[in-house]
């Protein structure tokens, strides 16, 4: 049950991995441009969510790592056992989990973007 060939899925896996590396590096640098404990202050974090380029970066981290991570999990589970039912089940479950995590993370980004400073 695959719409894509495994070779195409591996290309997506590698591209999302390299792209995630770049965006996560920027995300970590944003925590290090000021003292680490200060960067985690509520006002500072909410200010990050009001910065549209940073919001785009967070959403791209969310999508890239969810695709890469859950596809990696799918690969591991397919290496452990092979049968039609197992492969279809693993593919459906990992895609569902990936979509769930993306939806939940996107909800946080949208809600935090709408929050004001208290």
């Amino acid at each position: 049950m695959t719409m894509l060939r495994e070779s195409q899925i591996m290309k997506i896996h590698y591209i999302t991995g390299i792209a995630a590396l770049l965006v996560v590096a920027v995300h970590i640098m944003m925590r290090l441009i000021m003292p680490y404990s200060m960067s985690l202050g509520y006002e500072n974090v909410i200010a990050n969510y009001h910065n549209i380029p940073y919001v785009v970066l967070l959403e791209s981290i969310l999508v890239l790592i969810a695709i890469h991570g859950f596809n990696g999990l799918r690969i591991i589970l397919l290496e452990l056992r092979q049968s039609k039912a197992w492969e279809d089940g693993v593919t459906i479950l990992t895609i569902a989990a990936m979509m769930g995590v993306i939806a939940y993370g996107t909800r946080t980004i949208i809600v935090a973007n709408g929050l004001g400073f208290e």
Partner: protein
Amino acid sequence: MEIDRNNREGLKGWLNPGRYGWERVSYWLQRLTGVGLLAYFVGHIYETSSLTQGPDAWAAMLELTQTPMGHLILILVIGMSTYHSVNGIRLIFTHGGKGLGKPGRPDYPYDAVSLNYRQKSGIWIALILAAAAMLYGASVLFGGE
């Protein structure tokens, strides 16, 4: 007639570190760090969602995560992500046929040309960079700033 595609060794075959030396250890670490990072990623999304419940919920979450144990977990995550990234780049090159060496006649003791010093040094570089990143992470997290 349906072909039986069941992997008879299952988890035991996956975890066997003795069969291919360092390459097997690298294979194993790549998967363990991947699963660990996925678990951290899901936890981090949950942790960050406390922002939406206001400053008190965020402060309560920080009290839970910004502890010596939380910092140790974060240092482990730094090491896992560095190893996974560097070894992953090595694997991308390897899957593209780079660094595998030229195929040769299989003479005794049948050492695979593909498992050469380039591959082994790639694994060592990943391990050394992971250790260096963990030390830097520890200096930031426990450095008092």
